[in-house]
């Protein structure tokens, strides 16, 4: 494990020149998009075809402004849609639809620590509020509301003069959620803290404009 980080360190070193500071007044725009899905068809002789499909689409945007050198405040917006449908080709056959939609707002602050010309480390505490709504074909709905406190460190790597690729990881989070269905409601509290590094990082494209 150690040797990998050492390798990465060397790699970063090869681009080494002076440290680059991010100036006061710089605007920050970040975005990431993710999507996946499937379509299936089950057929057997003498029976109508059965079909299932699901899509997952999510988009996250971040805007920020540098209040002083290497310090930024900003807000993140996120949204995702998960439509699901399973139905039969037979006329008057079964048809089940479900749609989950989630929206979130998360104000944050972020401190940067430039390591090399192109590479910076950052730490980002944020407070997030999330709404989620699930609608079923029989028009039943389920709503939930959650708030969370998160601290996520990350890295930012400059590809061009203004463009950077960023990855962050969630090592600490504290959450409170409220669930409301047609039949009742519930409260939940969760906390999460981890010192281990995950092996999959979500990537974000970011612009630094001044």
């Amino acid at each position: 494990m150690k040797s990998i980080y050492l390798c990465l360190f060397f790699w970063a070193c090869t681009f080494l020149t002076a440290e680059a500071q991010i100036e006061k007044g710089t605007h920050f725009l970040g975005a990431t998009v993710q999507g996946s899905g499937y379509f299936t068809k089950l057929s057997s002789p003498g029976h109508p075809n059965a079909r299932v499909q699901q899509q997952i689409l999510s988009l996250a945007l971040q805007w920020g402004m540098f209040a002083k050198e290497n310090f930024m405040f900003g807000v993140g917006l996120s949204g995702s849609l998960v439509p699901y449908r399973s139905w039969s080709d037979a006329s008057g056959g079964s048809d089940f639809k479900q749609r989950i939609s989630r929206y979130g707002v998360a104000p944050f602050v972020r401190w940067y620590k430039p390591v090399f010309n192109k590479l910076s480390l950052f730490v980002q505490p944020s407070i997030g509020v999330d709404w989620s709504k699930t609608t079923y074909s029989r028009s039943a709905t389920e709503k939930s509301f959650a708030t969370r406190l998160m601290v996520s460190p990350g890295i930012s790597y400059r590809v061009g003069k203004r463009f950077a690729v960023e990855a962050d990881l969630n090592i600490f989070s504290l959450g409170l959620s409220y669930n409301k269905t047609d039949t009742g409601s519930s409260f939940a509290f969760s906390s999460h803290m981890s010192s281990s590094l995950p092996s999959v990082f979500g990537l974000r494209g970011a612009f630094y404009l001044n």
Partner: protein
Amino acid sequence: MKNLIYIPIIILLGMTSRVMAQYNGRHFVSGSGSIGFNTQNYKAIEGAKSRGAIGFDMSVGKFVTEQKVTGWSLRGGLTLQKTTKDVTDSSIWSDKADGIEGYYAGIGKFWQYYKHVNEHWGFYGGPDIAASVNVDNEYHIQGTTEYVHTRTTAFALGFSLKAGAYYKLSEKCWLNASFAFINPVYLSFERGSNTEYNGSTHNVLRKSKIDKFNYALSPNLNLPAIGLGLTYFVR
């Protein structure tokens, strides 16, 4: 603490030595292979189930400039299975499940960009496009007297980005280690056929088919993802 002093010295040495070697026009073969067996013994019933798997992953490439490589990759493999007749769980189909359980094959086109740090080692990274086919056979019991054979054929097409480092063992032989990859685009089409059999007569009772199309757009970095291989220069 000592390491912290050595590291900048190593870097300085690395930066000052100029890259002398000529790579342009050289051809190489690179690859890795795998082989594995496992046997499960069921004491109570004196039965056993053995499985074996072999696979290879090789590529041929050419330096078209000092820093750029283009090439093709080829991979393939298969899984074999052998079950002795007394394994209760699978006794009704054991003789049918023996043999080739599954196999896969794939072909890809890749581009790599090299950063030769000094004469001994450097980094590389680049995109690749790969297509593959994967066939899998599976048997399971349904109820008490029937069993089902599921055969799945999957075709996949993917685009990925990989990064790694190399170390020269000799002029002709390099050790390479990949450490990260991203699979931003992935598409697959799967066709599965289910055949339900009567357990004692082996007659076909029912047949069904399932078609599945998958897609994924995921800008995720997988790190560390270590793979070791050898690169051999043919000329």
